[in-house]
C-alpha cells in the first residue's frame, strides 16, 4: 500500500509545488480585471493585446532575440573550435587551458557582469546590447565548450583519420565529418545558450543602457507592482522558452536514440 501510495502523494505534491507559480502566472494573464489575484474573472485577452501593442516591450523582445541568437552563435562557434583544438591536437598544458575555458562557470553572473562593467567604464566603451552580448558569450562559452568537448569521443577520431586518409583537407574534415558527427552536441549547446541568454537578467541589466533586453524591461515594469500585463508578458516568455526546450528534446535527443 505505502509502496505505491506514498510516492503518488509525494509526486503529486511536488508537481503542485512546481506548477503552482506557473499556473497562477498563466491563469491570471487571462484576468479581466486589473489585479492578477483571485477571484479569477475572465477569460480575457485584453492584457495580451495590451502587451503586444507596447512598443517598448516588443522592442525589448526583439533585442533579446537578437542578443540570444548572435551570442549563442558566437559561443557555440568558439566553443567548438576550442574543443576541436584541445581534443584533436597536441597542446602543452591542455588541463590548464581546459580549466581556463571552464572557469567562468564557477563565478556568479553578477561578478562576471561587474568585472566587465568596470573594464568597459575604464576604457570608455559605452554600454549597449553589444556589451551585454559579450557578457552572454562569456557565460555560455564554457558550457558550449564543455558539452562539445565531452562528445568528442574516440570513435570520431578514427572517422576523421579515415577522411584525412581519403584526401580531405583540414577544413573539409571539420565541416564534412566532425561537425555533422557532433551535430547533436552542437545543437544542444546552441539551444541551451539561446535559452540562457534569453533569460539572463543581471549581466544584461549591468551592461545595457538605452536599448534593453526583455528581462530588464520586465524588471522595470515590476516596480509598479502586480499587474496582469506582467502575467501576459511572462506567459509569452514562458511559451517561447518551453517551445525551445521541446524543440531541443524532439530534434536533438529523439534523433540520437
Amino acid at each position: 500500500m505505502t509502496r505505491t501510495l506514498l510516492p503518488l502523494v509525494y509526486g503529486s505534491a511536488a508537481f503542485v509545488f512546481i506548477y503552482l507559480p506557473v499556473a497562477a502566472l498563466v491563469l491570471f494573464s487571462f484576468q479581466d480585471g486589473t489585479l492578477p489575484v483571485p477571484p479569477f474573472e475572465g477569460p480575457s485577452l485584453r492584457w495580451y493585446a495590451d502587451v503586444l501593442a507596447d512598443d517598448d516591450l516588443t522592442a525589448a523582445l526583439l533585442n533579446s532575440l537578437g542578443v540570444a541568437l548572435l551570442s549563442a552563435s558566437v559561443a557555440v562557434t568558439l566553443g567548438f573550435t576550442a574543443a576541436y583544438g584541445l581534443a584533436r591536437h597536441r597542446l602543452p598544458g591542455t588541463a590548464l587551458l581546459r580549466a581556463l575555458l571552464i572557469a567562468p562557470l564557477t563565478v556568479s553572473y553578477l561578478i562576471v557582469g561587474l568585472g566587465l562593467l568596470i573594464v568597459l567604464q575604464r576604457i570608455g566603451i559605452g554600454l549597449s546590447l553589444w556589451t551585454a552580448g559579450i557578457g552572454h558569450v562569456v557565460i555560455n562559452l564554457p558550457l558550449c565548450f564543455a558539452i562539445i568537448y565531452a562528445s568528442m569521443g574516440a570513435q570520431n577520431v578514427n572517422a576523421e583519420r579515415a577522411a584525412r586518409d581519403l584526401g580531405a583537407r583540414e577544413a573539409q574534415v571539420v565541416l564534412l565529418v566532425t561537425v555533422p558527427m557532433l551535430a547533436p552536441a552542437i545543437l544542444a549547446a546552441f539551444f541551451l545558450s539561446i535559452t540562457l541568454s534569453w533569460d539572463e537578467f543581471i549581466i544584461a541589466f549591468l551592461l545595457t543602457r538605452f536599448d534593453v533586453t526583455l528581462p530588464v524591461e520586465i524588471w522595470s515594469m515590476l516596480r509598479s507592482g502586480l499587474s496582469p500585463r506582467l502575467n501576459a508578458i511572462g506567459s509569452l516568455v514562458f511559451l517561447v522558452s518551453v517551445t525551445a526546450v521541446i524543440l531541443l528534446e524532439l530534434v536533438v535527443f529523439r534523433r540520437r536514440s
Partner: protein
Amino acid sequence: MTARADTIRGWGFAAPALVWTAAFFVVPFVVMAAMSLATLDGRTLIWGLHPDNYLELASKAYLARAIVVSLEITLTVTVVSVMLAYPLAWIIAFRIPPRWQRLALLLAILPFWTSYVVRSYAWLLVLARDGVVNQALLGIGLIDEPLTLANTRFATVTGFVHFFVMLLTLTIYANLVQLSPNYRKAAADLGANAFQTFRHVVLPLTLPGIMTGAFLTFVLCIGDYITPQILGGNTELTVPQVIMVQLGRRADFPLASALAVVLMGLVTLAYLVMSRWLRLDRL
C-alpha cells in the same frame, strides 16, 4: 603532419576562445580584484593597496550582516532543495516505467525554463497578501487573517527552493539511472530492506552526484540578486543586493568589488569543504 605543425594548428583552433575568455573574463576579474584594493576620495578613484574596503566590511554592521544573511539563506536553500528533490528523482527513476521517465522528467523541470525574473514574479503572485495561497487558506477557514508571506525570507527561500528542486531533480535523476539496477537487486537478494538498500547502497553511490548538485546550488544561490530582491523585499539584504546598492546609488565600485571578492571567497570555501565529494569533471 609533424608534431610541431599539429601544435600550431591546435593553437589556431583554440586561440579565439582563449583570447575571448582572457579578454572578457580574466582581465575584468583581475581589474575587479585590483579595484577592491582601491579607495574613493570623494568621487576620485585612488588605485593602490588600500585595505579600506575590507576594513569597512568588518566594521559596518549592515555589511557583515549581509554576509550572514546570504550564508543562512544559501545553506537553508541547499539542504531543503536536496531533501525535497531526492525523493522526486527517486520516484521518477524507480517508480515510473522507463518509457515514460523522460517525459516525466521533462514535465517535472519544465518551469525551470521560465525566465528567472518571471518565475520570481509568479511566486510573488502566489504569496501576495491577497494571493492564491492566502485566499485558499482563508477560503477553507484555516486562517482568519491573511499571512505575510511575500517580502520575507520565507518567500526568498521558497522561490529559490522551487528553482533548485528542479535543477537537483535533474542531476540526481541522472545519477540514479546510471546506477546499475543489479546493485539494488544484489542488496535485496542479500536481505536488505528498501531503507537499508537506500542507506547502504544507493545513497553512498549517488553521494558524489548529490554533492555536485549541492555545490552548484550553493554557487548559483549565493550569487543571485533577483530572487531576494523581488521576493525578500528590502527587509534584509543579501551580499548581491548590497553590491547592487553600492553600484547603483553610491557608485562605490571599490566596495562593490570587495564584496564580490568576498562572495568568491565564500564559494571557494564551500568548494574546499565539499571538494572530497565533488566530481566537477562529470558535470
